[in-house]
């Protein structure tokens, strides 16, 4: 199903153009530049040191980065002009796991809870979420994933994705799951420049995968499975309704085609001593394709920088406001499950509350629910201030400092109307509990400071750069909330209308802290600009590490060798560049929450030791305070030990980058049995290991380039990752598999299998007599009462190969690009097929495939019957999946200077981007179970004055 692009044999391309396309593994800041006497280019993105206003992140140095992927803001904006996260997942195939179930679709409010950069490095049980996401660094300080989600794409100058421990070592224990490092653009060194950006987008929901039955078919099927036996009247009534009104398409009701627009104005300028920039941006309507979902954003920032000949100072303050609303239309699958023979509303357009009341197929109407005043929204305010200071003491020494304050506030309000169907079983006595308004506030505050000094030396063939730094980080996340109930009508949609607190409810609240102090050092040495060696180390002491092991160390050694400079290749015409890189490093990483390593106590409020009510001489009550957790104060961090070897260069017209990596994640958190006399049957330990190894590649070639400005390049990139649990105590595996089986999940853990493996019971088919599924047990017998021990490993969900390919080109003022994504050979558990077909009864609407459900008349069936189906994870739903999609399609037009002048502009550019134009999969599955996927068409305009 994947059609390879026709390749043309064009003229030989020039080297300079090779990397202008979309790059994966190659780092344009070649190691060659890093260690010359002039300051490394990474520092200022091309601005020479004397003019450079500030040093943002001192840690992006050295050959360690040669193995990492780095992308310019321009490249990313070509993939998606407004959504940085989306652009990153398109540009780098090694990013995965952001929505593993593919159910959040294009929800504008969805923030990934997990993200893997180089294969699964955690066990399936997810005991903690501290290492679910990579560290996000913006200009040297860390930011939250929520901030990344709303990141102003136009600020991005460069994004580097640090996957290997060789590069993350300098970021230490917080970067144990990789790091995404963003550098923002510095103000232009011009007198005054005004830039206006406009991004207008139209989104349309892709509902192709929701092929449910229409009214006639559904009714026919219900009749076939015998739901109308003896109820002919009901059947005739429904038939009549269908004849009169036709079939209702519920799936179309909650979705809308949206138009959203985003504006940004930036005023910037400066000279060699003073730089300034002011930015205002806004997205007044960020509607999603599901009605009612919305994410509006407004922001402003101010930058001032001052430089003398040896001191640079800058400060940037930014404020963002986000106003998010969650759709009150519920989840997509609820609409899909509505029976199509029901009419949703009466003649006056008022939705019916309940449909088919009293029949086998009674359903509450989501349209009724959506017609109420219920809502959920989140109002977010974010403030960030960064102060940078750098002092060049002499030509060897530089001292710099960075101080950052961040404060994020959000307030969630959730109103559930008293008219909601949720309350339909409440009695008159419960009237004062109907309707609820919940308020929850979070406050995140962090302070980060970094001070570092660097020493630079150039002597003959040798170049040396050494940096020593200290970093302190302190953050507090606190939240509190309460729920009020008792609204008497739908319109009382504010908390002050509540009559009381929720029954059995209490105010909620919590606070967590992180405090870290670190020291790091790095030494880069180069010989003849041919051999480059970097040695880095870092020590972190953190409040999130266990009390007995509070200090974690990370280090790395990397080297790069420019093969082009060897005698063999120096004069080669075919080989234009060739660099070999290799590195070894180990990075420590967080992996457990506070309670795994520290004792926790709590009051057992509902169970006081003595609840006396006697005369005053005697106690009125003795409360009990208890130890509530099992902990191990000697737990260690996880250790990522990484080896990587890479080769990149250009041979003839072909540009190649290849990289092999092998990461062993050691000391992973596990559980081990313990003598019961210790008080608990188990304890936490560092008994697990996972190995990830893989190959990443990028091939690109300029097929055609003519004098008239016509050129065409193609590229393909991909990653093949293999992961394996190499150490895991049986006790942990059994414990989790037992739990997983109880919960009817398709997950499991076993030594030797992939960490992201699927586990299911081997199906023996549907029993022709009962309509229930049967399974092959371990002992070979067939049964419908399996146990956890009968779960079988079905393979890894990681695709054998995953990546993108596409082409880019330009003709005169027009440039264009198209990117296709593919993934091959990953195992997929079709949860939706199981939930919506196999386990579905006759009372809800079902996909067409449900015709293949068992009935006494159709005994050779693919799905279980409607009576008491078994809900175990079954091999029937395990598929090997290949997917293909047209992820991004773009055409750009740059107006000639002459035309721009006429419009009083210095430059004018137009871009048209299509996101997620087509998705196809070898497995028929619901795509966007909760929220539909959308195809977006985005028109972007950039005018410079």
């Amino acid at each position, binding site marked *: 199903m994947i059609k390879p692009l026709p390749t043309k044999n064009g003229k030989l391309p020039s080297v300079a153009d090779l990397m202008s396309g979309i790059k994966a593994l190659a780092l344009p800041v070649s190691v060659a530049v890093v260690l010359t006497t002039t300051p490394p280019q990474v520092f200022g993105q091309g601005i020479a040191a004397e003019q450079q206003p500030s040093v943002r992140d001192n840690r992006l140095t050295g050959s360690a980065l040669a193995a990492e992927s780095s992308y310019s803001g321009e490249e990313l904006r070509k993939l998606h002009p407004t959504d940085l996260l989306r652009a990153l997942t398109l540009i780098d195939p090694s990013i995965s796991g952001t929505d593993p179930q593919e159910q959040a679709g294009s929800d504008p409010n969805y923030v990934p809870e997990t993200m893997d950069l180089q294969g699964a490095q955690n066990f399936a049980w997810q005991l903690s979420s501290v290492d679910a996401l990579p560290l996000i660094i913006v200009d040297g300080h860390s930011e939250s994933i929520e901030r990344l989600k709303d990141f102003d794409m136009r600020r991005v100058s460069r994004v580097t994705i640090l996957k290997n421990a060789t590069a993350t070592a300098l970021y230490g224990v917080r970067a144990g799951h990789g790091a995404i490092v963003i550098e923002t653009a510095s103000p232009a060194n011009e007198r005054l420049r005004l830039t206006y950006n406009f991004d207008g987008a139209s989104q349309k929901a892709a509902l192709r995968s929701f092929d449910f039955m229409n009214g006639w078919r559904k009714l026919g099927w219900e009749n076939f499975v015998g739901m109308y036996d003896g109820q002919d009247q009901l059947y005739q009534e429904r038939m009549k309704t269908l004849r009169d009104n036709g079939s209702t398409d519920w799936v179309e009701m909650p979705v809308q085609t949206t138009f959203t627009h985003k504006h940004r104005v930036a005023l910037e300028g400066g000279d060699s001593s003073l730089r300034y920039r002011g930015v205002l941006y806004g997205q007044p309507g960020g509607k999603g394709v599901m009605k009612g979902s919305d994410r509006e954003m407004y922001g402003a920032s101010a930058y001032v920088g001052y430089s003398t000949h040896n001191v640079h100072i800058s400060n940037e303050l930014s404020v963002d406001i986000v106003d998010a609303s969650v759709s009150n239309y519920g989840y997509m699958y609820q609409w899909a499950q509505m029976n199509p023979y029901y009419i949703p509303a009466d003649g006056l357009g008022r939705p019916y509350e309940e449909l088919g009341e009293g029949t086998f197929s009674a359903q509450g109407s989501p349209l009724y629910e959506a017609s109420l005043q219920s809502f959920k929204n989140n109002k977010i305010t974010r403030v960030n201030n960064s102060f940078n200071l750098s002092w060049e003491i002499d030509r060897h020494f530089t001292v710099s400092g960075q101080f950052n304050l961040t404060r994020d506030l959000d307030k969630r309000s959730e109103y559930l109307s008293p008219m909601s169907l949720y309350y339909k079983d409440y009695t008159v006595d419960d009237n004062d509990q109907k309707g609820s308004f919940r308020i929850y506030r979070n406050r995140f505050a962090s302070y980060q400071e970094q001070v570092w000094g660097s020493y630079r030396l150039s002597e003959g063939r040798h170049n040396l750069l050494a940096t020593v730094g200290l970093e302190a980080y302190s953050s507090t996340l606190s939240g509190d909330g309460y729920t009020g109930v008792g609204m008497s009508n739908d319109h009382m949609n504010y908390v002050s209308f509540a009559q009381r607190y929720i029954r059995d409810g209490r105010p909620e609240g919590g606070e967590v802290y992180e405090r870290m*102090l670190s020291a790091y050092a790095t030494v880069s040495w180069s010989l003849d600009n041919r051999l480059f060696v970097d040695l880095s180390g870092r020590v972190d002491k953190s409040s999130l590490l266990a009390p007995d092991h509070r200090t974690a160390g990370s280090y790395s050694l990397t080297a790069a060798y420019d093969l082009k400079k060897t005698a063999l290749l120096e004069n080669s015409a075919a080989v234009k560049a060739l660099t070999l890189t290799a590195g070894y490093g180990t990075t420590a990483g967080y992996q457990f929450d*506070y309670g795994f390593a520290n004792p926790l106590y709590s009051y057992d409020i509902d169970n006081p030791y003595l609840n006396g009510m006697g005369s005053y001489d005697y106690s009125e009550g003795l409360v009990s305070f208890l130890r509530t957790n099992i902990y191990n104060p000697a737990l260690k961090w996880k250790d990522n030990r990484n080896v990587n070897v890479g080769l990149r260069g250009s041979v003839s017209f072909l540009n190649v980058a290849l990289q092999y990596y092998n990461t062993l994640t050691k000391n992973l958190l596990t559980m081990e049995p313990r003598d*019961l006399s*210790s008080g608990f049957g188990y304890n936490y330990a560092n008994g697990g290991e996972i190995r990830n190894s893989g190959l990443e590649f990028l091939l690109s070639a300029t097929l055609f380039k003519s004098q008239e400005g016509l050129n065409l390049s193609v590229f393909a990139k991909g990653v093949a990752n293999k992961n394996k649990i190499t150490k895991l105590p049986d006790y942990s595996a059994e414990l989790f598999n037992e739990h997983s089986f109880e919960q009817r999940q398709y997950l499991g853990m076993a030594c030797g299998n992939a960490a992201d493996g699927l586990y299911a019971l081997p199906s023996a088919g549907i029993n022709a007599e009962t309509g229930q599924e049967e399974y092959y047990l371990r002992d070979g017998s067939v049964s419908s009462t399996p146990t956890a021990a009968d779960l079988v490993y079905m393979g890894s969900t990681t695709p054998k190969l995953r990546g993108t390919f596409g082409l880019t080109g330009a003709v005169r003022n027009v440039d264009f690009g198209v990117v296709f994504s593919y993934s091959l050979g990953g195992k997929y558990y079709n949860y939706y097929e199981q939930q919506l077909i196999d386990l579905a009864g006759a009372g809800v609407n079902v996909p067409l495939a449900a015709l293949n459900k068992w009935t006494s008349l159709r005994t050779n069936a693919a799905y279980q019957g409607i009576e008491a189906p078994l809900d175990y994870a079954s091999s029937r739903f395990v598929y090997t999946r290949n997917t293909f999609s047209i992820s991004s399609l773009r055409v750009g037009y740059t107006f000639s200077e002459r035309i721009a002048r006429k419009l009083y502009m210095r430059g004018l550019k137009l871009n048209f981007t299509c996101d997620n134009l087509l998705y196809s999969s070898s497995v028929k599955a619901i795509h966007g179970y909760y929220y539909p996927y959308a195809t977006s068409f985005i028109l972007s305009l950039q005018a410079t004055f």
Partner: protein
Amino acid sequence: MKKIVYTALLLLTMSSCNSWFEVEPKGDSSGVKTFSNESAFRDYMNGIYTELRSTDLYGSNLTLGGLEFLSQTFVPYEEAKAWTLCDFSGSFARTLSHEVYTKMYRAIYQCNDILELFAEKSDVLFVDGSREMMMAEARALRAFLHFELLRLYAPAYGVDSSAEVLKWVESTSKEGARMSTAQMTEKIISELTAAIGELGKYDPVVTGVGYDDNVLLGTSPIDRKWKLNYYAAQAVLARALMTCGTTEAYGKAYVALDTIIQSGKYPFVRTIDDRDYSFSAEYIFGLPSDNDGFCQVSEDLFNPARKGVTLALDVNGLSADDRRRYWFDNDNTMRTKFDSTSVLDNWEIAPSIPVVKIGEVYLMAAESAAKSGNLAQGVALFNDFIGTQRNSADRQLPATATAAELEAAIGEQYRYEFMGEGVRFLYCKRLNQTMTAYDGTTSIPSVGSKCLPLE
């Protein structure tokens, strides 16, 4: 360069002490920093007892719902039959045994935890004497729990004192040491003796002055009934000493028990006030039940519509005027003793779970007096118990009664005195007796070697 040094110094001073890193989350739970005042320690002590009164332990398994069946006083329901006949291979026995073993060691863990916290948080201010009292109490409780485990899981001392079944655990982090029954008994006796020495000085039940103030409750002399107090510890010490079986040990046990009797603080209930059917005045140490917990177990057991357990012994074995008759009901059950309508005097709470009662003290004192060479004193004590305290002059022994007659009479009282409290089985086990099962025919020999199953 100076700047670096200064900033580095600034950072280092900020964090030179580890406390900067010791930040505890707030929320439903809190960390060890909570133990910065006395009430946290008191509440933690309460917490340990709260776990003890759960149905896994004294709230059912170790009393009415489990161990009591082994006393052969009730006709068991179907699932409990094998268990009642001391066949511990079934799932009833295994589940119960596992729950008891796990929870008892967890309670021991908590005792060790609080003892370590007492040691660690030496700067916390307490009401004078309160800290010493709680530490001694936690130590005594730890010894008591080990002794309970020993009685249940190891063969009786007199049958095999060298069996190494259990571990003595006295740290939250270190593994416990496996000990023989003799070693462990010795350890228990010495720990209890030490704790009693401290409790004698600081326990309000002895001094008569509580540690309560405006914000702290639960240490007035009368409230000590709900904790392992000085007198309860003496009784437990006597229990432990009596397992040794030597004349000397019986002598020491008698001394301990005599302290309790002489204190005069625990009167027998001789008139019933129409409410307090579980005789709370007789408790030396009890665990208050949660609002309806223990009554629920009782109701569940005796309600004919539920488990329908009936009595296996004849109520008429008691004298007509014996107040213990009030426990029983016409339908041959014992619903009244722990019924929710039976409310404790003074506290107005539902019947609590007896752990040590004055009755056992008298019976043990009579036995140890006789076995330490003072048979006449033993007979006198028994006669005081049955004749005076239990209004049954007709059951008194003649002053010339033999040791065997006394033992038989005491054994008979063990059947009635502790109905529903799980005491008699352990008495029979200590003496390695042969029990006649509830059905009146089956014989259960060598009770001394009946041990709860470990796995």
